């Protein structure tokens, strides 16, 4: 394979844990490990004391302001929000320009992927966390069997909850291969996927590790590509995120919208920000990581419902980087609106959790991420959720203004707030819609055009999800709403360049 920095000594067995842990100890480590070692990075508390005080302070100031000087406070609030939107728009334009000019992708050709002889491949841990998924578990077992990787070097961990009998019986009925370990995670609070992953991490043997969901279908050469890419990459590159795509984009309008959104993210936005300073929020699956690094940064946060986003930010904070791997994993897009809203609420709740956790010490975050990374983090993680929540409010205000011209709107939007706000609303929405079309074009999927035209309706759904997310954040932050799978019908995608 040529001279590379890493040694290529054959590793048939990975590192074994230093001592064997009992189930109770393992559970304690999985649940409380991060919280005890890095309490400031754990989402076990939604807000720390200082954040709580700040939020109370702002709330009190607003209430007082509205009582004493309603117009002035109104202007201040609308001015601040307009400024946020303007910043988001400006950063989106920056991303857009990078998007269309210089995407940053790590590509490994099929020949290069197959070129490594088996004895030079490391042990690869593949973890699948499943809960109440008897219908689809057979799919992933089949996909894993189809992976082009020597079976004896694959360390597959199927993480099931101990009281999940239906899935367990489905797994046994599918006759898993010999390299599949079925790990039963003892039930404990919080009952989340990252806790299960942490549990599995303690038992992992591989040098590299990746996660798949129960309904995923990764392309067969993905693991090999990851190995090649890691061997070429700097030691700082600790994670490779592969592309996620939906195999059922034409099932209905919702899946088309979802497919476009994923295309925007994985075919475009991710390659644009990877290779820069902005922390990359990872996708929930197909992130290939060096296990040593994962252990070093404390594993997953079991209290965060989007553990992948949190992990991505923590990676960057500890000085590591994520690159984008040109390899596809097919997932199932949610086709049922109610199910979709639950999933989206969980995502936004997690984003909000992640933002609150990492913004506990803003100065430290700035030092660790750098100025650009800090701003990028705020735009990507913070502003996404916030604007999704505020959008319906301002749309309502806009329509009210144009049809009824109530005077209170005129008074809280003086021209120096009104014009920038209006400009960023128009330009921002146009850009969001325009990007959808460009993404479809570049991905060679013109049949998604009809869905793209109707995208504003999708944005309304997103706002509903965001609203629900904020309510849940206040009421039950660690509640993981399970997404039902298996609702798709088999489809064939016709994707041409």
């Amino acid at each position, binding site marked *: 394979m040529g001279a590379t920095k890493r040694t290529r000594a054959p590793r048939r067995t990975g590192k074994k844990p230093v001592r064997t842990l009992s189930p109770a100890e393992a559970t304690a480590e999985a649940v409380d490990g991060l919280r005890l070692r890095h309490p400031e990075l754990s989402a076990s508390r939604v807000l720390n004391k200082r954040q709580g005080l700040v939020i109370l302070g702002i709330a009190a100031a607003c209430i007082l302001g509205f009582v004493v000087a309603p117009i002035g406070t109104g202007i201040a609030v609308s001015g601040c929000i307009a400024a946020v939107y303007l910043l988001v728009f400006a950063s989106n334009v920056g991303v857009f320009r990078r998007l*269309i000019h210089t995407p940053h992708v790590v590509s490994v050709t099929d020949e290069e992927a197959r070129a490594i002889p088996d004895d030079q491949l490391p042990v690869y841990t593949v973890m699948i966390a499943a809960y109440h998924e008897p219908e689809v578990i057979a799919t992933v077992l089949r996909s894993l069997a189809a992976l082009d990787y020597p079976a004896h070097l694959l360390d597959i961990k199927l993480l099931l909850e101990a009281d999940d009998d239906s899935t367990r019986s489905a797994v046994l009925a599918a006759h898993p291969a010999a390299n599949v370990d079925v790990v039963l995670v003892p039930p404990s609070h919080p009952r989340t996927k990252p806790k299960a992953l942490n549990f599995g991490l303690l038992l992992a043997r591989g040098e590299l590790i990746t996660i798949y969901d129960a309904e995923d279908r990764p392309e067969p050469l993905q693991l090999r590509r990851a190995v090649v890419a890691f061997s070429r990459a700097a030691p700082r590159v600790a994670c490779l995120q592969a592309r996620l795509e939906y195999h059922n984009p034409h099932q209905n309008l919702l899946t088309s919208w979802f497919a476009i959104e994923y295309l925007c993210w994985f075919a475009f936005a991710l390659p644009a920000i990877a290779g820069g300073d902005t922390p990359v929020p990872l996708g929930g699956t197909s992130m290939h990581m060096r296990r040593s690094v994962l252990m070093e940064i404390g594993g997953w946060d079991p209290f965060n419902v989007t553990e992948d986003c949190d992990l991505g930010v923590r990676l960057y904070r500890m000085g590591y980087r994520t690159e984008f791997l040109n390899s596809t994993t097919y997932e199932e897009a949610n086709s049922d609106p109610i199910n979709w809203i639950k999933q989206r609420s969980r995502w936004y709740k997690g984003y909000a959790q992640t933002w609150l956790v990492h913004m506990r010490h803003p100065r430290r975050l700035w030092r660790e991420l750098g100025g650009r990374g800090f701003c990028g983090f705020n735009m990507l993680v913070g502003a996404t959720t916030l604007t999704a929540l505020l959008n319906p409010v301002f749309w309502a205000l806009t329509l009210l203004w144009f049809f009824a011209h109530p005077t209170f709107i005129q008074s809280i939007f003086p*021209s120096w707030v009104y014009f920038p706000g209006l400009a960023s609303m128009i330009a921002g929405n*146009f850009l969001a819609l*325009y990007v959808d*079309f*460009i993404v479809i074009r570049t991905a060679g999927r013109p*049949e998604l055009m009809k869905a793209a035209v109707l995208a504003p309706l999708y944005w309304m759904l997103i706002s509903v999800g965001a609203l629900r997310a904020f309510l849940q954040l206040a009421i039950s932050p660690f509640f993981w709403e399970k997404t039902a799978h298996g609702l798709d019908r088999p489809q064939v995608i016709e994707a041409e360049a």
Partner: protein
Amino acid sequence: MQAIALRPKFVAIPRRLIRLHRPSDALIWFWTCLVAYLAVAFYVTLIAHSQGLGQDGVSRVAIANRILFSGDPHLAAVGFVWSPLPELVLVPLVALKSVWPALVQDAFAGNIVSALFMAGAAYQVFRFLEEVGVPRWVRWLLTATFALHPMIILYAINSMSEAMFIFFLLLVARHLQRWLRTQEISALVSTAFYLAMLYLTRYEATAAAAAVVVIVGFATFTRTKSVARRRMRAAVLDSFIVVAPFATAFVLWALTSWLITGTAFQQLSSSYGNAAQLQSRGLSTSLTLGQELAASSQALHWMLALEPFLPVVIVACVTVIVWRRDWIALAAPAVLGAVLAFMFWAQVSGSVLQLLRYFIVVIPLVILMVGVTLARRSTAGSPQRATSRLEPGWRDRWLTLLWAGGRTVAAVAGIVLMSLSVQAGYRAVMDPTINVGYAAELQALMQRGPLTHAERLASLRFVTDHQVSQYVDSLHLGRGTVLVDDFLGFDIVMSSSNTQQYVITSDRDFQQVLADPAGNGVRYFLVPSEQALGKLDAINRAYPGAYANGGGLGTLIKQFNNVSDDTTNWRLYRVTGTG
């Protein structure tokens, strides 16, 4: 860009100390043109005080001025009859008028902007020739024939929006060509964006947009290798991408106009729009066949006056393209040609006034076509092979020499023709039968000796407006005390030192004040004489006979007769019932 050492080699200076990068040829052109155009504009406007040069450009500066400094400063004062971008670009410059009053008093802000954009257009021409693969010496000389063309120089220094239009049009053409060549999505997006900018500069961009959409759709349809339905979808998608920003600008501008003024397309229906202006001058908008034929031949005559070798160049260009089968090269000329064709049709059908400046696009069109003809390689990128790669025998060597010689002859011919066009252009610009309404002014400017009567009159445009303005200023009036429709009175308002004393059409309470001037604090009003465009004046329309005898509204204080060849006189009336 290479770093050059400033001292001879024997004195070793570390390269890091002297970071002088030689700028690219195109940038050199830009800066040279900018400085030259600004210098000429400075001389003409501020030293020779030839204000009539500005024409519509002066009214644009007035609009920017009223956005910021009128009695009711608001952004919607930009007005919805004409496209907003030329005025909006002027706003930052006009804001500096307290630093340099000439920016507004002499409307020099407009000259700066037009010089900037025409220099930019020269840059674009050079870059286009570079991208097409024209040899360096030919590039330089061809760009010179563009930048030195008298019509181009005139519109670089006269603050009108043609410069901005040509700039964006060339950008659209360049990026469209780049997309056709490389298929990069960034090129398509750039084309789309500049097309939207073009629309916001002038409405004629609609013709360019139509051409671009057709070209993009056709190109994608023929290039996609798939079933017909997929090809159709891909073509529609690409056309959509290229036209979306333009369509958004179109819809948003119409929507804003409708929200603020109640009419969506003021250009067509406004009482100050094209149709109204034509009518007020007694020109019909629907012509008979005979009139149309006359208009066509006049239009052709004017186009050829600007660029006499247009037919030759068209034939040569088409021949070369067909011979090379390099259809991509047709795209840029097609876009400019579409705009030109649209202006031709507009003139012939009587929808617009008959002015030479509507054909200015023929100049860059011809230069681009010459460039395409002389390109060393086809735009597809593959170099032309005149001879085989095998051992060159004496015959091959002769063929190569012949090819090179032929190309050089063609290049020299192209440059000679373009230089002759420069000379022809000068004659056209100075000819009063071709450059209607403008040539007299220019002749006055260029004359060293005594001026003819017509020339002298032409050189005195806007002087009357300044006289009116100074008189009103000397009355030391308060805020909102003088009513005037700034459709024709824009220079009066603009050159005033107290703009807030005027209540003008763009003020949000103008209609209210017009209905009851005395009750709203107005003490005086100004009306233009009721000939030609004066008929469209708001006060003349609201109070018939306002000019003749006050229209029952006021008593005559003073009359200002126009000293130039413009027939608009002004009268100042005091509103009855006020002190």
